[in-house]
């Protein structure tokens, strides 16, 4: 059993001596494993101990700091959640408080205009109809302001579901059919050639975005002009699978000098103000916010006096992280 040992052949006593020696000689044996092992085993110097104590103290301090930060973040988070709730409540209450009297005014004008409250002269009818339109405009402003609030709400507010873009575009065209016809503007949607799989989108928000763009296109195009909505799925099979809704008009266009500002809230181009004096400049800001929240982008090309093309580019699929939050 001591065959490997050079002194294996010694007498019993000698063997005991060797064993003793081996125990005593333990540290040198470690040399075979390298110098590092020795260093670890060697007793630390006072200086090293002091150094370690110091480091320990620093670590403890950092730990306390982290704990404090953690608590701070928890509190900030809670505060943000509270603010979010307050904001949400504000939007809810504001919508209700503002809309209720507006609804009354709107209904009253409409009822009087249509003779529900007794017969009226043509002149009275004309003025009452104007009143009704004004009420509608205030309501549109209130809705628009609230929509911006909604578009800016947290990710959990967006609900991504499979959406058939052909149907969505059809719906929007239908919505604007009368407005366009009254203004003698040709409004048409060019359908996709083949069946495209549904894209993952928040239909309510996407419709809102598209309506804002189409509304502008009709508003800022003179009678006899044309507004065309096209769905482009050329990039659906590319690495970053996207689909585009293109809204092209033959309208007044966006002046080059103002093209950098059109997505700013409340900004309106000079030629737009001239054509439609009472807009509020939130439509594009809202639309852009919505498209960005889809992980897409809202681009445009425009030439003053010739027309504008808006591209609502949205990814075909939403990344897991977004669809999972709910």
């Amino acid at each position, binding site marked *: 059993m001591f065959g490997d040992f050079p002194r294996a052949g010694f007498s019993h006593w000698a063997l005991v001596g060797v064993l003793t020696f081996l125990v005593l000689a333990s540290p040198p044996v470690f040399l075979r494993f390298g110098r590092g092992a020795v260093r670890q085993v060697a007793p630390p110097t006072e200086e090293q101990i002091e150094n370690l104590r110091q480091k320990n103290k620093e670590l403890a301090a950092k730990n306390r700091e982290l704990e404090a930060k953690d608590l701070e973040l928890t509190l900030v988070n809670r505060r943000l959640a509270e603010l979010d709730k307050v904001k949400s409540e504000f939007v809810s209450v504001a*919508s*209700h408080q503002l809309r*209720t009297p*507006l609804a009354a005014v709107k*209904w009253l004008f409409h*009822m009087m205009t249509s003779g529900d*409250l007794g017969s009226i002269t043509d002149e009275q009818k004309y003025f009452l109809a104007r009143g009704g339109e004004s009420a509608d405009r205030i309501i549109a402003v209130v*809705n628009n302001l609230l929509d911006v609030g909604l578009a800016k709400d947290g990710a959990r507010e967006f*609900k991504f579901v499979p959406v058939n873009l052909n149907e969505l575009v059809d719906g929007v065209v239908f919505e604007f059919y009368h407005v366009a016809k009254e203004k003698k503007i040709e409004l048409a949607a060019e359908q996709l050639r083949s069946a495209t799989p549904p894209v993952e989108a928040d239909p309510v928000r996407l419709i809102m975005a598209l309506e804002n763009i189409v509304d502008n296109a009709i508003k800022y195009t003179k009678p006899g002009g044309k507004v065309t909505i096209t769905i482009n799925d050329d990039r659906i099979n590319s690495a970053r699978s996207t689909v585009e809704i293109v809204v092209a008009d033959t309208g007044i266009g966006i002046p080059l000098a103002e093209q950098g500002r059109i997505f700013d809230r409340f900004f309106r181009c000079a030629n737009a103000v001239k054509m439609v004096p009472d807009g509020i400049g939130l439509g594009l800001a809202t639309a852009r916010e919505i498209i960005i929240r889809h992980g897409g982008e809202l681009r445009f090309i425009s030439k003053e006096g010739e027309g504008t093309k808006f591209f609502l580019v949205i990814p075909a699929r939403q990344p897991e992280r977004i669809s999972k939050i709910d």
Partner: protein
Amino acid sequence: MENQKPKVLLIEDDEFLRTLVIKRLENDGFSTAVAIDGESGLAAMADTKPDLVLLDLLLPGVNGFEVLGKINQNENLRRIPVVVFSNLGQREDIEKALSLGAADYLIKANFTLDDLIVKIKQRLG
């Protein structure tokens, strides 16, 4: 023939809105009933057995959501279509109302009373 007219129960706390809606409904040949809060609304629903209920959501006491919940639990009341007619318009409100069994959700300010009549007539076939 009074009892052949379709009957609409309006649960609405705002007096002026109530007057306008009732006026419009009656002009269009509906028979009407009103309630000014959730509790009396539920009672009126059981009493008058309307063909359709127009329900506001922000009501004193028992609110519209609670009214929907109670209707939903009642075998007899559940059969009557309830159209929410409110100025609350957040998605959560709409989804909550629909999940509680509302047949439709109309935001007052976005509809004229003509639109409302069309919706009611569609609903009643």
